[in-house]
């Protein structure tokens, strides 16, 4: 046991508390076993880069913070197998550097949010970037996990191969569970070759309804479109990825059908989508950030509701399936109610480490909630792992 260094994003009370910092998975399992016996609630983190996502709730009297950042390191990397196994605390930056040297990447485009993001946090939160609508989400690129369940058992699920139907797909269930089904210690990712190059096309501005239609049509085109976004001040933007030779004919084909105003070359294109992925502009403004995931055709209706509530700063990603919005500081927006009307789910981003963000996650209808609780009870009978964080 070892007290960790002070982190700028932790509240005073958290720093005052001793923070456990297990050095390996079996030590972590020991801590959890002990906590299960004493009914100590455990709150976990690694890079703490996503402290503002999920609910936090009020502090529990027996809460113990565990940092998983020491479970770090590349366990195995076989480029020819398109497979990478890493410890959960491994920094995302390190992974991306390693893969980039081999011309590979995590195709779901992990969202860093802050510089300290780790592999485990990426899987636990499950945020995917612009390519989501085309390539799949975090769940689609995790092949297996090792984790500690709520009874302190060190468990393996999945494997290191793409095709695997051996037992329940628990590893996908843990993806996006905010650490409330198990504490992830090791991850096996499926990798993808990195496209040689990319271009971004900025289309002439259109009214919302036209933009919506155009985006739906674009998503159905045969070209390798891996980004379709919209912002009110900029209009529709597209990303194409592929080989040097293969890309130009595709750009030409698109330009025959839509009004392309500007083309961004490779580096500018990459920067454009990374800013979008990281939600930089909205997160740097003061106010309350909301995230909505919804059927791609419904975003304009949702935006009208947001505008009616004086929320004008927003952008759209995933071909229409994702909307990020910024409510002004003085505005108390009920994003969940708006979301419900459009078949969306909403997340609210906390504004400070002291913000309990009780409304951070949507509430589930009773039947679905019971079902979720059954899974949680099986994985964590005492309810000690990050309770409430996922909104359940």
């Amino acid at each position, binding site marked *: 046991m070892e007290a960790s260094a002070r982190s700028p994003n932790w509240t005073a009370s958290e720093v005052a508390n001793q923070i456990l910092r297990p050095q390996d998975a079996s030590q972590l399992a020991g801590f959890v076993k002990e906590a299960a016996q004493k009914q100590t609630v455990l709150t976990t983190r690694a890079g703490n880069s996503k402290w503002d996502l999920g609910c936090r709730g009020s502090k529990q009297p027996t809460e113990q913070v565990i940092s998983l950042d020491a479970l770090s390191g590349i366990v195995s990397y076989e480029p020819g197998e398109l497979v990478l196994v890493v410890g959960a605390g491994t920094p995302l930056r390190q992974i991306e550097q390693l893969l980039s040297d081999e011309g590979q990447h995590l195709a779901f485009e992990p969202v860093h949010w802050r510089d300290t993001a780790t592999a485990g946090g990426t899987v636990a939160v499950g945020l995917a970037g612009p390519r989501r609508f085309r390539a799949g989400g975090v769940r689609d690129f995790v092949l297996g996990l090792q984790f500690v369940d709520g009874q302190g058992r060190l468990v393996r*699920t999945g494997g290191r191969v793409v095709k695997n*139907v051996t037992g329940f797909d628990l590893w996908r269930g843990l993806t996006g569970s905010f650490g409330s089904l198990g504490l992830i210690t090791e991850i096996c990712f499926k990798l993808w070759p990195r496209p040689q190059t990319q271009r971004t096309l900025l289309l002439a501005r259109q009214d919302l309804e036209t933009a919506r239609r155009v985006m739906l049509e674009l998503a159905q085109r*045969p070209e390798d479109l891996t980004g379709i976004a919209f912002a009110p001040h900029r209009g529709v933007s597209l990303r194409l990825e592929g080989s040097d030779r293969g890309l130009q004919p595709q750009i030409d084909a698109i330009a025959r059908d839509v009004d392309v105003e500007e083309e961004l070359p490779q580096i500018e294109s990459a920067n454009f989508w990374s800013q979008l992925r990281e939600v930089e502009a909205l997160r740097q403004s003061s106010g309350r950030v909301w995230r909505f*995931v919804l059927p*791609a055709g419904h975003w304009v209706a949702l935006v009208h509701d947001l505008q009616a509530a004086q929320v004008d700063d927003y952008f759209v990603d995933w071909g229409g399936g994702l909307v990020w919005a910024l409510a002004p500081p003085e505005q108390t927006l009920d994003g969940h109610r708006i979301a419900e009307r459009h078949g969306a*789910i909403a997340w609210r981003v906390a504004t400070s480490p002291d913000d309990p963000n009780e409304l951070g996650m949507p509430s589930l209808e009773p039947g679905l909630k019971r079902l979720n609780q059954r*899974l949680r009870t099986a994985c964590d009978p005492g309810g000690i792992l990050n309770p409430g964080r996922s909104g359940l």
Partner: protein
Amino acid sequence: MDSTERAGPHSMGRHQRESTRKALRKALPDLARSGQLLLSDEELAVYECDGLAAYRQAPIAVALPATTQQVQSVVIACGQLAVPIVPWGAGTGLSGGALAVADGLVLSLARMNRILHIDYDHRCVTVEPGVTNLAVTHAVAGEGYYYAPDPSSQIACTVGGNVAENSGGVHCLKYGTTTNNLLGLQLVLSDGEIVELGGPALERSGFDLLALFTGSEGLLGIITQATLRILRTPESSQAMMAAFDSVEAAGGAVASVIGSGIVPAGMEIMDRLSIEAVEDFIGCGYPRGVAALLLVEIDGPSSEVAAQIEAVEQCLRDAGATQLTHATTTEARQKLWAGRKAAFPAMGRVSPDYYCMDGTIPRGQLSAVLGRIEELSQIFGLQVANVFHAGDGNLHPLVLYDGNKSGDLEKAEELGAEILKLCVAVGGVLSGEHGIGVEKRDLMPCMFTDDDLDLQEEIRDTFDPDHLLNPGKVYPQLRLCAEGRTHVHGGQRPFPELDRF
């Protein structure tokens, strides 16, 4: 082998069977009246086995509901009467997943076969579970779409069965298996509750239960609807066939294609035995006398396909391809694939019976594993043909045997088990796409620890505490990795240099 015993410990006398049937008839009067409840031995014989024909067991009854509400009433009635339920799609499963249990009811979803809704804006289709895999593609092909997972059994197998098995096909490396192409489900749980998961949005609130239910082999709930993601038909598809002097060389070519940064839509390897059998069977123009064939398919935008096909050709030549055939037209491409798709039936002509295995291995282990399979084949005195989804490492060794010869089936099963343990030992898994079912359940401890299995079974218990749904499948009755059966040579285990987990 006593196959009834494998289906579960239960079995009841004739008298008890009749009284349960009577109780079912009484509990489900509407179904009984409309011919949706089969109770006579002749009618039940059809449901005696699924695609794994070596295991046989007739159910006590078959229900053929036509609506979700009827499924619900069957589940509730069976719950009250403590009659176990085995869900049934088309019965093409290859692991005995749909094998009846002696005192149980088979719940066939075959009559729920409507396509409910096609939404091109959100590129998804909602279907009932009895719709066949190919029917989904047929429903949307006119608009230029298709459903990507394409098991070779796609004319017959159902979407419900595909979801329950998380089925794949030949295009998994690029397009994923069923789970990666599924957006929503409606299910009836063991207590009769109807739940809806997911929908046209890409993410949902709460835990990813959709993923948990996919591939759960009918243990967690009955699938009554599924919303599937459809894809735009690629602008261009081209295939290439390359012959090699050894399976190892073909495996090397696969590694070099992937190493060059290309993800083909499909890559399949066939060995000599399979190639000759297929040529004898349908004569699709495969070269004879070669050790291995590699089929590669590239799809995507025309300009990209053109660039990639050149690069692939270079890789194949560098890897020692002795012959190269291009298929640029749809007809030529289909002809190349026809041979691969006929590989299983072709074996039926070479040998009275065959037993299809389904392990997945890391691609780099291919030559080591094939070498060892060859050794095992000699030890057991049974021939093994190999077809291989090379892109994703999914191996289908076909063990040839004669069921009429006493002891042959047992030998085939034992050889099969050795092959699967070998897959696990080199870092692979017991099943790539056919599921665990009854066939492989007792091998589960080779891959999982007690803690791993405990947690999985505890999850099952919270959804189905009385084990009403598909009892006796997936999870072992006895937690031993049947290690006693490993054939030891000169005191060595296979691959002593490799870590076991």
